[in-house]
């Protein structure tokens, strides 16, 4: 055949813009008509040009409309199909709505916390620098000597600055309150690229004045100017725009001039740089103040974190070993965002992974549903194939159907996410940073949209894959409602959902056992009816004066009606202090780091700590310069004296201080819920020469809130500068310790229940279809003497096969992914066989439940009827 002329080829090329169906129907006629139209122009160039212009514009305008027409027809058709199966469609849309809704909500949390950049200019170039050891990979603050070294030697950082935490008590204006300030070296705000919201930042003169104050030993170290953070400005100064130039008074009567207010963007630094105000400071190791600094730097443009860390390896080469753990230290940098959110990353990604599993199980069910629909419409499909519908056309139809369902599900899902996201945020433990930045926004919507589109496309294609129906294969048998290919696809997706559901169930089981283990922890104290009140230090008063104030307060609180016992100390689950350098007489052993608390008489009684032997502290012991007496915990008895009775024995603190043991108490969890406290000694708070423990613990009969005004009066009558912020139940510390895992458990529990339900629906669908397919076969078997139990065995073996394969894959997946859970479990190993077994058992039971209805139907078949259906 001769090649058609150019103009005809061009016209045909334009026609390819139209849907294939339209082209098939009218393409030839259109080409012929165009040829005639062209001939009519008589080859006159002007008319030829006009014809082409008109035709091209017309075709370009029409083609999209024709496509839209096809899509619309497909949508209408899909809608009709869905309406024909209202229950199945509603189930699919609802389950997708739940899947997409949960995913969107969890995604919003994950992306809001982990991925959204900080509200600071070029924040991806901001890094935190600190020291790490093998056992504590979290950055620790660094001392001035190293900091100065870093500032001088770095070539990778464009700018670097440091800030030391500095507690102050603001006594005016307003009620006395504790506040954390950051004593910053020059240039911190330049590193962060922030400008003050009001007023100015510190000048060189401010920093020089700070140096002068520090080098003059007669002066206090708090300088004379301060910059407020956004939160402090709003809460304490009511957002007063005229605050710059006014003064605030800190304990001791010193007045600080407020020279500036920073904007809210710095609040995003959260725990990486927690400060409510800033003071000028200088980094100079020769001053001799011990002030470890949080260090933040800005990478030179084009330099990477890897390059910086290589440089830090060199700068930190001569670091001494950690003084407590004796481990080698290294200087490290991480991005500031990592520093803020690094601790919760695994947990959040784990939850995201789990919720994606739920969505995958949902998808499996959608594919299953389509395949069931397609099976029911096999004749119709075959007819369409016979009438010339291409395979592509069938896939397009399947895609449309699937997209209609998934987009409807997506709409429902977005609505659910709008509702669920605030709930999720309110359930989240407060230790997750940046929670207050999270809200439903366009990213939630985009995610819901993209997720539903992806689900629709993937499900549509999967469901269309087995439709490679050649017409002749279809018209063959009336009975065979499904092809083997369809059945295999349905079984495969069901196996996948069983595997996913199992993985979720394993995770849930591990979390349940973790929570149970945490709840079973022997706390060593009785938190019921105990409240704590914070008596944090007045930063600038002397230790002895402080101890006297405490003693007076405690004695008067004890006398209040309803107070059964009261005492001061660090309290449990509130962090702790450690001592090195303790020894035993006539023993060369170094006792290592020993936990220490400085407590007043009444402390143990208030906490409800069990006395093992000896006695608690009494008022007569609390003689400041008298003989030093201590209590020890059981771990100390084992570690120091091999479990022998320690009463009357002594512990040496340094050379001169001899401390005599007068009692042994049960181990009390002091740092965290999970961590064994280790050896611990309790000294009397007014015999301590090192520190002051600022928590008052009160055991109360009745409502503790009733005590609050009386306690406030007592505190005010003793010191007008003492902050008091009410009482908190001790149980709150336990709840806060449990909160992160409880959050994970709640979500993973919800996800695994959903996964399980969806898997049951999926298994049910496949088994029910199996029974329908096998009706004639079952009839034959029964006619030849098969009993009901034989039939049941046939059905259950089918279900059993699916679940067995699913369980094998699921267990393998769970084992492969177990390291993800290792940071979340406690008291149970991630490879715990019992967790896997019980999860498998749950799925086996679920499978049996899913098989029961179809199996009963099969067992009740009348052989005569069944045979006739052949």
């Amino acid at each position, binding site marked *: 055949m001769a090649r058609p002329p150019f103009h005809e080829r061009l016209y045909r090329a334009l026609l390819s813009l139209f849907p294939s169906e339209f082209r098939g129907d*009218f393409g030839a*006629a259109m080409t012929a*008509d165009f040829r005639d139209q062209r001939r009519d122009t008589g080859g006159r160039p002007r008319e030829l040009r006009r014809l082409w212009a008109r035709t091209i514009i017309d075709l370009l305008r029409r083609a999209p409309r024709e496509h839209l027409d096809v899509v619309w027809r497909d949508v209408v058709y899909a809608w009709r199909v869905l309406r024909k199966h209202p229950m199945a469609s509603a189930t699919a849309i609802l389950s997708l709505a739940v899947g997409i809704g949960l995913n969107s909500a969890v995604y919003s949390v994950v992306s809001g916390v982990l991925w959204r950049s900080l509200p600071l200019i070029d924040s991806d170039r901001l890094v935190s620098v600190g020291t790490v050891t093998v056992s504590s990979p979290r950055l620790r603050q660094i001392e001035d000597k190293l900091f100065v070294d870093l500032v001088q030697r770095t070539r990778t950082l464009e700018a670097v600055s440091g800030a030391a935490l500095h507690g102050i008590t603001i006594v005016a204006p307003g009620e006395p309150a504790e506040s954390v300030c950051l004593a910053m070296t020059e240039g911190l705000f330049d590193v962060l690229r922030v400008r003050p919201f009001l007023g100015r930042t510190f000048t060189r003169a401010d920093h020089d004045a700070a140096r002068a104050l520090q080098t003059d030993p007669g002066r206090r170290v708090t300088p004379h100017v301060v910059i407020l953070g956004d939160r402090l400005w709003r809460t304490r100064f009511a957002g007063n725009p005229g605050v710059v130039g006014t003064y605030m008074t800190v304990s001791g009567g010193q007045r600080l001039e407020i020279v500036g207010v920073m904007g809210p963007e710095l609040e995003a630094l959260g725990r990486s740089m927690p400060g409510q105000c800033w003071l000028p400071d200088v980094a100079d190791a020769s001053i001799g103040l011990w002030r470890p600094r949080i260090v933040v730097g800005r990478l030179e443009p084009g330099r990477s974190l890897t390059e910086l860390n290589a440089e830090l390896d060199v700068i930190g080469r001569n670091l001494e070993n950690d003084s407590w753990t004796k481990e080698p230290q290294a200087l490290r940098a991480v991005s500031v965002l990592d520093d803020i959110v690094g601790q919760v990353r695994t947990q959040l990604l784990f939850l995201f992974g789990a919720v994606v599993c739920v969505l995958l199980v949902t998808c499996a069910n959608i594919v299953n549903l389509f395949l069931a629909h397609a099976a029911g419409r096999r004749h119709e499909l075959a007819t369409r194939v016979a009438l010339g519908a291409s395979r592509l056309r069938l896939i397009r139809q399947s895609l449309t159907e699937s997209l209609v369902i998934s987009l409807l599900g997506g709409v429902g899902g977005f609505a659910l996410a709008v509702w669920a996201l605030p709930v999720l945020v309110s359930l989240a433990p407060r230790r997750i940073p940046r929670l207050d930045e999270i809200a439903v926004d366009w990213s939630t919507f985009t995610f819901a949209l993209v997720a539903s589109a992806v689900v629709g496309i993937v499900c549509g294609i999967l469901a269309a894959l087995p439709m490679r129906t050649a017409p002749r294969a279809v018209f063959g048998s009336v009975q065979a409602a499904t092809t083997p290919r369809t059945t295999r696809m349905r079984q495969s997706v069901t196996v996948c959902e069983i595997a996913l559901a199992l993985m979720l169930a394993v995770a849930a089981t591990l979390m349940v056992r973790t929570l149970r283990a945490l709840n079973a922890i022997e706390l060593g104290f009785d938190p019921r009816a105990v409240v704590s009140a914070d008596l944090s230090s007045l930063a600038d008063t002397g230790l002895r004066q402080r101890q006297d104030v405490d003693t007076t307060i405690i004695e008067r609180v004890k006398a209040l009606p309803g107070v059964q016992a009261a005492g001061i100390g660090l309290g449990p689950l509130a962090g702790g202090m450690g001592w090195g350098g303790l020894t035993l007489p006539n023993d060369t052993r170094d006792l290592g780091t020993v936990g220490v608390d400085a407590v007043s008489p009444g402390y143990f009684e208030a906490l409800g700590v069990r006395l093992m032997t000896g006695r608690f502290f009494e008022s007569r012991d609390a003689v400041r310069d008298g003989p030093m007496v201590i209590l020890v915990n059981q771990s100390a008895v084992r570690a120091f004296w091999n479990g022998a009775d320690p009463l009357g024995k002594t512990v040496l603190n340094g050379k001169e201080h001899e401390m005599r043991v007068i009692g042994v108490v049960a181990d009390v969890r002091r740092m965290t819920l999970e961590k064994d406290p280790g050896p611990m000694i309790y000294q009397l708070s007014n015999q301590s020469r090192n520190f002051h423990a600022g928590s008052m613990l009160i055991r109360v009969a009745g409502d503790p809130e009733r005590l609050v005004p009386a306690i406030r009066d007592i505190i005010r009558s003793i010191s007008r500068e003492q902050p008091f912020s009410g009482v908190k139940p001790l149980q709150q510390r336990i709840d806060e310790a449990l909160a992160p895992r409880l959050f994970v458990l709640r979500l993973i529990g919800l996800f695994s229940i959903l996964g399980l339900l969806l898997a049951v629906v999926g298994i049910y669908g496949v088994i029910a279809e199996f029974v329908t397919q096998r009706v004639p076969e079952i009839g034959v078997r029964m006619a030849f003497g098969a009993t009901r139990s034989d039939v049941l065995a046939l059905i259950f073996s089918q279900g059993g096969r699916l679940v067995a394969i699913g369980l094998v894959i699921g267990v393998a997946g769970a084992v492969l992914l177990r390291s993800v859970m290792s940071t979340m479990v406690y008291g149970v190993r991630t490879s715990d066989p019992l967790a896997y077994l019980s999860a498998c058992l749950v799925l086996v039971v679920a499978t049996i439940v899913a098989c029961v209805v179809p199996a009963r139907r099969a067992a009740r078949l009348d052989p005569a009827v069944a045979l006739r259906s052949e």
Partner: protein
Amino acid sequence: MADRDPSESLPLTPALFHVLLSLADGEKHGYAILKEIEQRTSGQVVLSTGTLYGIVKRLLADGMIRESAAGSDERRTAYRLTAFGRKVALAEAERLRGLVAAAQAKRLLTNQAG
């Protein structure tokens, strides 16, 4: 088909009505429809192939025209009005007549015949 109410299809787009009109006096294939419309309107309405077959597709789907075996050769299909198509065209013409009458009653348009 016979039960369908032609007025449900109204109003027609001008192009669609032109196509129906050009088939009113006998079956034609696409090119002839294009020519007839162009000549009848003195070149004021010129349809292109894309628009024409978009209309043809719709008319076929709505049962207003059908393919005519008699007028077709191996390259081209001819189309003819169905009874329903004729009714629709008539109904549209009546509708237009009503509009013209209204315009005359309002003296917007003088009745040239009268």
